[in-house]
């Protein structure tokens, strides 16, 4: 679909998950590097959303469009929801929520690619 962008998203989301796990194990609050990387993931996902919408509109091949759109839009919601849910619990467990968010983004982007490939 747009492999370069997806590699960027997956790498950034993996960094989020890694930083979050390390911070949670050390019982530290999420640092700016973690929050910044999460914001970068969201930015990349928004770009992916726009590109994805344009590509869906422009394709005429057989695609499970509803499923594709559900993943395309759904994945954009993950970082903000994870952030809000994590921010309300300022312990290592809140930080660990960000790791779950990072892993979730990776899984959803991989599925998105599979759905696009058909």
């Amino acid at each position: 679909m747009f492999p370069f962008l997806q590699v960027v998203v997956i790498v950034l989301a993996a960094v989020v998950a890694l930083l979050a796990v390390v911070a949670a194990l050390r019982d530290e609050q999420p640092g700016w590097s973690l929050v910044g990387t999460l914001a970068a993931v969201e930015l990349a996902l928004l770009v992916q959303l726009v590109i994805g919408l344009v590509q869906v509109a422009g394709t005429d091949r057989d695609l499970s469009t509803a499923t594709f759109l559900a993943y395309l839009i759904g994945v954009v919601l993950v970082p903000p929801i994870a952030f809000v849910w994590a921010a309300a619990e300022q312990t290592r467990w809140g930080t660990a929520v960000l790791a779950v968010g990072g892993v979730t983004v990776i899984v959803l982007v991989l599925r998105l690619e599979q759905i696009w490939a058909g």
Partner: protein
Amino acid sequence: MTVRGPSGPPPTTRSGPGRLLIAVYALFAVAATGRSVYQLSAQASEAPVPYTLSAVAAMLYATATLALVRGGRRWRQVAWTVCAIELVGVLTVGAASMVVAFPDETVWGHFGAGYGYVPMVLPVLGLGWLWRTTDAPR
């Protein structure tokens, strides 16, 4: 692992580790709901039983999420019940899927292998967490 702070009150079901547990429960509520909606709308006539199981799993995850968020005595009873049903469900469906060839995966098929075995671990953690927070403020 410190669940209870030295001075603070015992945790509610949504604080501390509960925060993480609820996040994963909510994620699976969404995932299982999405899967069952897709399966029931697209392929229900092909294999109604596994797809209905996905829908049941989705409802259980959603109920567990809500119950753990709300806490309180009644909701904790709901959470105990739902987590127990989930555990029985994933064990039963997991075992059945080893014997009978299901035409398509359900969330609980092969003990949740398609979902990183999280469906197998989740009810155990849920029950453990409810047990740990038994003295939580009602």
